[in-house]
């Protein structure tokens, strides 16, 4: 082993992001999926703009969580193709570095999806962001939390029979506290909640630290055994 775990993380993140830039799965598959979901919510809620605006925080984060299932599954599946999992195991990269790299790459991809979704909702739902700082910080932290949890469960589920269906069952309950905190903070930022949204941001920080520490500690066994 040479270098630090951070250099390993940069290596892995760079690999994943280059793969995404070449394959454009997020652009070609995930963004259209997000757009379809936004339209479906509008149709299901009778295209009533006031109803959509009241529910926009929840709709935004539910859409992000569903989109993250696709991104995480894709990221884990790529690592199992063509003997890449064995290559990573034998490469000498630190497991914590591999995990951190996956988190960074997933965060970057999901942030891009979130930005596009936010613009879409501003245009279609007439969303009025009144507290952009809270919105921005919440988005970055919540997306990082989803990435941190996804980088644990993605590889865990990728080696299982029925991996296409089991990831959602495993990951969604774990993401529920993230969904709760992000939605409440967004409600405050969009002028629909009471109090300040910053305690919810604190909750997201706690969740991010928890998932990240757990991911770093379990990365070694998961890399070896799955």
């Amino acid at each position: 082993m040479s270098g630090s775990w951070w250099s390993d993380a940069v290596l892995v993140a760079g690999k994943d992001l280059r793969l995404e830039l070449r394959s454009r799965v997020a652009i070609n598959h995930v963004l259209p999926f997000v757009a379809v979901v936004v339209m479906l919510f509008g149709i299901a809620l009778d295209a009533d703009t006031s109803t959509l605006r009241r529910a926009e925080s929840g709709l935004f984060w539910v859409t992000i969580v569903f989109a993250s299932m696709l991104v995480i599954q894709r990221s884990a599946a790529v690592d199992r193709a063509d003997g890449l999992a064995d290559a990573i195991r034998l490469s000498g990269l630190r497991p914590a570095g591999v995990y951190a790299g996956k988190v960074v790459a997933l965060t970057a991809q999901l942030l891009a999806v979130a930005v596009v979704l936010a613009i879409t909702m501003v245009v279609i739902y007439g969303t009025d962001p009144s507290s952009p700082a809270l919105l921005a910080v919440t988005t970055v932290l919540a997306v990082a939390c989803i990435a941190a949890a996804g980088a644990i469960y993605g590889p865990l589920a990728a080696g299982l029979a029925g991996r296409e269906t089991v990831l959602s069952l495993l990951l969604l309950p774990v993401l529920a506290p993230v969904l709760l905190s992000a939605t409440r903070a967004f409600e405050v930022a969009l002028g629909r909640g009471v109090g300040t949204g910053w305690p919810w941001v604190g909750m997201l920080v706690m969740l991010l630290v928890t998932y990240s520490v757990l991911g770093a500690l379990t990365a070694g066994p998961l890399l070896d055994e799955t």
Partner: protein
Amino acid sequence: MNTSSRGTKILGAISGALVAATLLYAFVLSKPDTELGETVRIMYVHVPTVITAYLLVFLAGGASIYYLWKRSEFADLLAASATELGAIFLGLTLLTGSLWGRPTWGVYWVWDARLTTTALLFLMMVGNLAVRSLPAEPRARGTRTAVMGIMALVLLPIVHKSVEWWNSLHQDRTVLGTADAKLDGTQLFALFIAMVAVPMLATWLLMHRFRVAWLAERAADLGLGAAIERRRDEGGEATGPAGVMP
């Protein structure tokens, strides 16, 4: 093959007697509460059930940590057994809570923080059982379920603290939260008997469940050993007497 022993028979008899005493005090001898009325009786089942569920989740998480550290089959099977029972007791918690909620709140379910996070913990345990049931090499299966068990353990304090962190409809801690408990003598006695009976019953169930899992693994090993022997015998027949190729 029998999973009982002298210890489990004694434990089973004592826990059976305590459960009977709990039911007697909870539903016959204790008085209705001045504020909660007859619905207080569900508390004698609900509170010990949720505490036992928390203990089982903690045990499963602890055994999972030990498994990842030492790769002990004992720890893996203990985690599996505790996860299974923890899921059952969490399900009972949600059921008894709903039965209490209907006459108290008018609905079986509210999106209260404690209820919601308890339901999520239940789903995480069910997910763990789902992963364990999928075909996989034992060490890989043990690693995956251990990671999931540790995640459930991490979520447990969030569930426990949720009453203080969020506005909640759920009743605050009845006995340990305040200096003067709001329960009278027979009610407190019923609750404390239940607090002993239910965990003891869970321990008895856990011992039997663990032994069943252990015996299942030994049976699988025997089956594997027999299959290997049959393959060796086939190989011996193919090469002919004294290992000479025909």
